[in-house]
């Protein structure tokens, strides 16, 4: 009986060690115990503004240029929140996509004016152009008229060859609330 208990403990220890090794830690250690749902932050952004939170979810996007942010999928569909770190403090690898992240930081709620949104969109267009000319390959769909739905256009910036539309400042109708978590601690597994 004792032998079984010892073996079981050893096995448990091995599993723990292997599991721990599979978790990649970035930046400072996580400190909060309580987990906050991303959907709760979206439901009451003002209540969370400036508060420290720990959230968990799938990594659905990674900053492809500097690895300085990841987007975390919410517990509710069609929602994700950006976890932003200071440039150079943490560099998230691009192969984190699809893994699960636990991150900790302070919720930031800001209102972007129309002018700021236009500037940000134009900057993004510039980055995309730079990306295309240096290393990014975008192959056009082979079939004629391979058009994208509106949803994917919004997400992918309309990178489908002939369907690509230049950014139109008139498409921005008014100020936009931007919610993100600014932090310095993350674990990805």
């Amino acid at each position, binding site marked *: 009986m004792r032998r079984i208990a010892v073996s079981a403990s050893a096995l448990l220890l091995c599993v723990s060690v292997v599991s721990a090794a599979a978790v990649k830690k970035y930046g400072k250690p996580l400190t909060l115990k309580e987990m906050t749902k991303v959907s709760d932050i979206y439901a009451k952004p003002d209540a969370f503004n400036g508060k420290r939170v720990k959230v968990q979810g799938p990594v659905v996007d990674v900053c492809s240029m500097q690895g300085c942010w990841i987007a975390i*999928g919410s517990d509710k569909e069609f929602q994700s929140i950006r976890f932003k770190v200071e440039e150079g403090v943490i560099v998230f690898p691009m192969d984190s996509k*699809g893994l699960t992240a636990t991150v900790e930081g302070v919720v930031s709620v800001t209102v972007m004016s129309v002018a700021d949104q236009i500037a940000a969109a134009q900057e993004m267009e510039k980055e995309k152009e730079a990306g295309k000319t240096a290393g990014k390959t975008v192959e056009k769909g082979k079939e004629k008229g391979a058009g994208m739905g509106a949803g994917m256009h919004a997400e992918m910036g309309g990178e489908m060859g002939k369907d690509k539309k230049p950014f139109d400042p008139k498409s921005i109708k008014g100020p936009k609330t931007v919610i993100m978590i600014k932090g310095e601690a993350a674990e990805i597994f």
Partner: protein
Amino acid sequence: MNWRHLNTVLHRDIGYLAVGLSIVYGVSGLAVNHKADWNPSYRVQKTTRRIDPIAATERAEIIQEALAKLAVGEKPRNAFRPNPATLQLFFKERTFSVDLPTGNVIIEAAHPRPVLFEMNQMHLNTPKRIWTVVADVYAIALIVLAITGMFVLKGKLGITGRGAWLTTTGVLLPVAYWVWYLYFG
């Protein structure tokens, strides 16, 4: 051994030791300096393909139908719907973004650039821990190399002659730039 000989020995041997790291930091420095123009660590490839539109309306069924139509033969790490019209399927090295109404698919694959990826990881101190110590020692070694370098030669080519002009120019370069940047940049 007089101080100048010791200085030369230090400069020579630390210089030899610093060759490897100097190349790593130099090459990565050039790569990272232009990160606004390219991705220095990954080669991102985007390709497209087309499948039949997805008819299912429930999340689980949408994923099943998309996987069946894509015939990838690999279990995704995760799935996400950024909006009602799009399904993203995450695999180890690829992300499929499926436009549900049209069946158009964007496949994004990110491949680490050989050697450069590793150099950038070291340059940006991604590993942290012991590499922080190595990077600190290397930084100190560069300072030692700079100081000992000034006293390797004697005479008109040394720090009292040609060396004085070149060293002053090298010191003035960052100072002059910063003054210009503050007032005109």
